[in-house]
């Protein structure tokens, strides 16, 4: 891409800005990054594109919760799952982003590492939501704690905690209904679900993952902000990164809230989940 502009000139700056904008990094984060980069170019007297691009990668890598020196060569599994306790993972996010599918993928991943996983079907609202999770449970060979459609999600979660303890599971994943962050009553329902978990299990939920659709634009920043205020997010899952969207919203979110991207979704099958690593993510961004 930068072969076109060997030297650092206004055309290169515009090209860089365009790449960030069209990747959904957003105008505010792009501006900060470009300003930082201009300072470095002055300081280090850079005149060609290659070293500039390297500096860009370093800046973005630092924003994405790693600084140059600390990026591990191989991705390290970031999930807060410890032996000797019932670990609770709470999956949250707006409608249709991939929560239920990501729950199935995480289950597969944890099972293959020897964990005993139980699922809670806490989406008691949407048509066939419980059925959808039950199909995954059957395919994965894990119990899915559920009640009738229309029941109280907090009651399902309470049931699931008791079942997990009784059946000696070491991971409970709670799949919740899609909810727009702007809906006060739905965010209150999420608070209630969380209260049940914190009351019943010390330090629970150990992971609260916001599932984001990689095609989402700047609204993702609002989603992260509100869900973080209501549910103390511990990580992001960036689903549907197998499309043409670059998922640059995680740069904007990382810059503002420092919530780490833990996993990326690259398809609809249970194997299509990878631990996030900034290197491949950034190479894809700069195509």
């Amino acid at each position, binding site marked *: 891409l930068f072969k076109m502009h060997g030297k650092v000139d206004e055309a290169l700056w515009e090209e860089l800005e*365009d790449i960030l*904008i*069209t*990747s*959904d990094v*957003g*105008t505010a984060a792009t501006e900060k990054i470009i300003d930082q980069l201009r300072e470095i170019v002055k300081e280090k007297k850079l005149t060609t594109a290659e070293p500039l691009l390297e500096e860009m990668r370093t800046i973005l890598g630092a924003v994405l919760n790693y600084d140059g020196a600390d990026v591990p060569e191989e991705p390290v599994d970031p999930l807060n799952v410890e032996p000797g306790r019932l670990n609770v993972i709470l999956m949250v996010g*707006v*409608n*249709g*982003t*991939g929560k239920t599918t990501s729950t199935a993928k995480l289950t597969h991943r944890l099972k293959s590492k020897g964990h005993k996983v139980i699922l809670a079907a806490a989406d008691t*609202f*949407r*048509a*066939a939501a419980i*059925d*959808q999770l*039950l*199909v*995954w449970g059957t*395919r994965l060979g894990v119990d899915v704690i559920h009640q009738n459609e229309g029941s109280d999600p907090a009651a399902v979660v309470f049931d699931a905690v008791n079942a997990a303890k009784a059946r000696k599971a070491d991971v409970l994943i709670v799949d919740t209904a899609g909810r*727009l*962050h*702007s*809906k006060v009553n739905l965010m209150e329902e999420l608070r209630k679900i969380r209260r049940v978990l914190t009351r019943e299990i010390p330090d629970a939920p150990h992971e609260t993952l916001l599932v984001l*659709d990689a*095609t*989402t*634009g*700047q*609204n*993702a920043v*609002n989603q992260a902000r509100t869900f973080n205020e209501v549910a103390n997010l511990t990580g992001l899952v960036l689903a*549907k990164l*197998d*499309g*043409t*969207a*670059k998922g640059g*919203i995680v740069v904007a979110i990382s810059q503002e809230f420092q919530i780490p991207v833990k996993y990326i979704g690259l398809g*609809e099958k249970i194997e299509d989940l990878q631990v996030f690593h900034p290197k491949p993510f950034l190479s894809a961004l700069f195509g």
Partner: protein
Amino acid sequence: SLTERIQGVLNKLRGRGKLTEADVNDALREVRRALLEADVSLAVVKEFINQVKTRAIGEELWKSLTPGQLVVKHVRDCLVELMGGTQADLELADSPPTVILMVGLHGAGKTTSTGKLALFMKNRGFKPLLAATDIYRPAAIKQLEVLGNQLGIPVYQLGENASPLNICRGAYKQAKENGNDVLLIDTAGRLHVEKELMDELKIAKEEMKPQEVLLVVDAMTGQDAVNIASQFSEQIGITGVVMTKLDGDARGGAALSVRQVTGAPIKYIGIGEKSSALEPFHPDRMASRILG
């Protein structure tokens, strides 16, 4: 607001005769930023800004509007014009059933919107039949059946082992036999880069010859909207757009991108999770929302 931001830029213009190119460029920098923040795709923003520029330069400064208000008026008018204009009603078949194909990316709201549109038409005297052709997603057929049940609308399905094409053919036959005058076909979510799935959709469209192919687009879609829309438009051909989840706080700039790139009108908007939450599209309301 955008008006205030532009006022700030153009405040020094009070009392001058016309808007010069320099004045307009300053104001349009704010417009560009606002449109990008609203998720309008960059290429569309650039083209749009040029269109507004042509109209605004040389404009006589009105006594009743400040220079900032004048620029915003041009931006707004351009936006409304771009997104409105063509007929947004549904195209009906000469002899029933009218066939409507619902397509789009994963999780955009196709299944939910299929139920909504069916109810919308039922309330207007139609006798709809739904066809469940998503044989991939777990419990997708069940999801459409539950909706059909809630709405008192029949759902045609052949389980997950039939091909989407055979399900479409069977549904059409049933519609003819039972006097259903509109057949709404719900399809599986697919990426515009999944060749096999796009081909599957192409084949279904060529055989069923739908009067409407509606691209269902999530209001929170960002820059990728141009890629999604152009690919669905080029590979499949769309007659209209349903934009969903406008009950949230997404600015919905994708509406402008999709319209600009495909020429297809936004016909309906989804404003909630219930089956009653569907409305016809209003370009002026959308323009205000995008401009913030």
